[in-house]
Structures are given as C-alpha cells and as structure tokens.
C-alpha cells in the first residue's frame, strides 16, 4: 500500500446526505424505521471511532493476548446480537457464544498454521473481526430458520418422536435446512464477487493505492477463510441449540396446539 486516504469529518458528514434519503423513504412509506436509522448512524460512528483507537493500541503493543481479548469481546457482542435475531430459540446465547468463539479461534489458528498470515495483530485483528461478523450472521440465520421450522413443523417432529426417534433424529431434516440457510448467502456472494459487488477489503486496498492483483489475492484468501468459518459457526450453533427445544425425555417443549 502506498498511501492511506485522508478522510475528514466533513466528508463523513457529507455522507449523511444518503442517510437522509433513507429517512425520507422511511417517512414516505411509513416504515417507522427513522429511529432505527438514527440509532444505527450514531452507534456506528461511536463504535468505529472507539474501535479504531483500540485497534491502534493492539497494533502498537503487538500483543497476541490483546488480540484474543478483542476477538472474545466481539464474540460476546456478536452472540448477544444474534440471539435477538433468533427469538424462537430457547437459551440461544450460550450456543451462539461457543459457535462464534470456536469459529474465530479455529480460523485464526488455521490461517497461522497454514502459513497464510503471520501471527501478528495487523493480520489477525481484521481477519478475526470479519470471521466473527460473518459467523454471527450465518449462525443467526441458521438458528432463526431452525426455530421457525421447528415451530411450524411441531406436528411432524412429534410424529417422528412418537416412532421412537431421539430428539436429534427427529429434527435432522430441519437441521439440514437451517444449516443450508446459514451458509448459502456467503456461498452466493463468493460466487458473484467481482461481478455484482466488490468486497470491502479489496475496495479498501485499492482506495489505499494497492496493486489490483495484490488486493484480489488478499480478498480471495478472506473469502475462502470465511466460507470455512461460517460453516463452523452454523453447525456449532445449530447442533448445540437444537437440544434446547427438547426435554431430557425427548419431548418437544412447545408441542402443537390441542385440537
């Protein structure tokens, strides 16, 4: 990278003009999303500014322990956020936390062990952040689908349990569908990358003056790493959370309604 672009606060404020468009659409269509948009704008400003200082500190200290702490904090916040997106899943926080933690740890260990990146905060922090973020989305989509499917197919699940199947056997087809739901969006975006959208890392490197082929190579590594990490996160979250729908006696906690 030859140089980093110098973005002023005034330029950031100018970008709010596009946010005004979103607010206008919300008001016009009575979407009632103005409040959410305002919260998103303020939170993103505060969070990115704060994390910029934190990352600068981690880079300066060159401490792997600080990298671990940073990724762990991201995993906790990610699990809280994902839990909110899967409200029909009982006690979803712990499965999500373990899923994000495992995806982050396994991915970082692998990229270092395979010699893809050196064990330095400058590489591990951005990769870890992307892994946790994408894993959070995939795990939340998977769990949300699992919760909806189990609620919608309670009769079928109980009919399968009534044949002497265990809870795991009874939800196997639903688990398969929920895992596909979580992983397919990233597979699709990997398929279409560079054609119908440009991924952020590559764009960032190009803006900073990197050679296009170098930017593409880094982006490819990230895409491939993310495919593995979202698979780990989805399967961990679903396998751990599916048990919470059942009692120890293989009974669905929320059975179908009395007819």
């Amino acid at each position, binding site marked *: 990278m030859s140089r980093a672009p110098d973005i002023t606060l005034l330029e950031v404020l100018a970008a709010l003009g596009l946010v005004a468009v979103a607010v206008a659409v919300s008001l016009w269509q009575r979407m009632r999303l103005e409040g959410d948009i305002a919260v998103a704008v303020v939170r993103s400003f505060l969070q990115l500014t704060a994390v910029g200082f934190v990352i600068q500190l981690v880079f300066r200290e060159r401490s792997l322990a600080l990298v671990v702490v940073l990724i762990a904090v991201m995993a906790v916040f990610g699990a809280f956020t994902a839990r909110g997106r899967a409200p029909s899943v009982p006690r979803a926080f712990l499965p999500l936390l373990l899923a994000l933690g495992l995806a982050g740890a396994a991915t970082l260990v692998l990229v270092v062990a395979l010699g893809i990146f050196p064990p330095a905060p400058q590489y591990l922090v951005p990769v870890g952040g992307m892994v946790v973020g994408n894993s959070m989305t995939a795990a939340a989509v998977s769990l949300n689908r699992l919760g909806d499917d189990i609620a919608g*197919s309670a*009769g*079928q699940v*109980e*009919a*399968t*349990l*009534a*044949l*002497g*199947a*265990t809870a795991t*056997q009874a939800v196997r*087809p639903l688990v398969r569908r929920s895992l596909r739901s979580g992983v397919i969006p990233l597979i699709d975006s990997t398929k279409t990358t560079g054609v119908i959208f440009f991924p952020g890392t590559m764009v960032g490197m190009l803006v900073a003056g990197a050679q296009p082929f170098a930017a593409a190579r880094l982006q490819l590594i990230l895409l491939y790493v993310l495919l593995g990490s979202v698979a780990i996160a989805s399967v961990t979250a679903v396998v751990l959370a599916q048990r919470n729908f059942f*009692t120890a*006696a*293989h*009974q*669905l906690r*929320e*059975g*179908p*309604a*009395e*007819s």
Partner: protein
Amino acid sequence: MARPATGPLACAESISTRGRACETRRRARSGRARRRISSPPVLFELDRVSASRGGARVFHDVTLALPEGATCVAGGSGSGKSTLLRLLNRLADPDSGEIAYCGRPLSSLDVLELRREVALVPQLPALLEVTVADNVRFGPALVGREIDVAELLDLAGLPATFAERAGDRLSVGEKQRVMLARALALEPRVLLLDEPTSALDERSRGRVEETLTDLRRRLGISYVLVTHDLAQAERLSDRVVRLEAGRVSEEPSAAALASQVAGGPERT
C-alpha cells in the same frame, strides 16, 4: 410381522414388566385387584392426573384405567382427548399425578422403547419427505430391524404399489393409512389413534374402521382411539370413556365392562 402377545401375559412380556408379571403386581394390590377379577388386564392407570398445554390446564385431576382391548375416548374439541394420547406416549408429562403402564410409572420406563411399544398415530398426517416405503421403514430402521413394507401396507389397507410413491403426493386418507402402516411397523402392543378418520369421507372412514377391526382380530393389538364421533366410538370399542373439558364425564360400570369384554371381538 411378529404377532404381539395378547391376553393376561401381554403386560408380563412388555418392556415395563421385565422379569415380573404386571398381573401379579396388580393382584398384590389386594382389594383393587379383587374388584377387577373379571376385567381385562389394565394397560394404563391414570391417578389424579392434571396436565397443561400451551400454558392452559387441559386435564383436571383425572383418575382412569384403560384395560387391554379397544377403548374409545370421546369428547368435543378441547376436551383433552389428544392430550391424553400424548401423555400415554410420553410426548408430554403431567403437571401432577401419576400414569402407570402395566403397573409401572411411565417416567421409570425407557421413553424410546415405550414409544415403540405404545405407538401413536397423530391426527394430522405428518409424513417425512421421502417415499412411502422409507416412511414405513423409518421406525424399525432406528433399531436396525428389517421389515416387509408390502405386508404392512396391506395391513393398513394400501396396495404394495404405493411403496415407491412420494409421501407428500398422497391424499389425506392415503397419508393416514401410511401413518397407520408406519406405526404397525414398530410391532406395537398398543396403538394410540388420534381421530384417524376425521379428514375422511364416509367410504374411506368405513374402510379405516374395517382395517382397525381387522387388525384387532388378526393381531390382537389393543388400541385407544380418540374420536369426537360417539357412534364411531361405540362401533369400534369395547368401552367408551367420555371427556368433557379435561374431566372424565362418564365411565362404564365394571359389570358393563365385563359383559362388553365377554362379547368383544375374537382374539387370536
């Protein structure tokens, strides 16, 4: 298909009474055993059972004995009929009270074995998205047992040509028959049938009723059949229990029970 044990030894050979006859266990309960001397062996006993569903109490302090043979549970919507079957199959547990199968508390039994021995056919057909044959094989495959799909379809009143059809491409009546074949594939001692003809026209209903009568005559399977149709209940059963708002409103007397059993269907 192996023929289930029938008569007084049935309970003795069941999962719930390994090494000890439930008939003996009941006789040990002196007075109660003597009063039932002319009755068929009891399969299920509910002792002051209350149960909820979806947060609402749907079963109130029910005490009830369900003997071997054919019992119909009649009642209107929301009377607790389906909940009773779910309790007997342990798809749900009571809030209070105790349920015994062949003299032993349900909670003390291996729940997966219980569900294979006391097979539930739910009201709404819920087949897996595979062929009819794979649906019928599902239960036995869980315990590594091979079955004759054609024979089971025949028992449920379906031709063998149905085996390779997709489960989700059948009519409701055909699905209900596949559900019955799927339950029979478990070689159950007891069938719990939840409104098995509720979605059928008169002709199909008649065929299912004939199938049930035939199954009982040929295989000696006991069943507890839930229905809102009192006439059907009387056609198909030795005894009728009426539920109203989660309470037993009417039970046959012991004498009536004995005379019903004496004149009941032939057993093999």
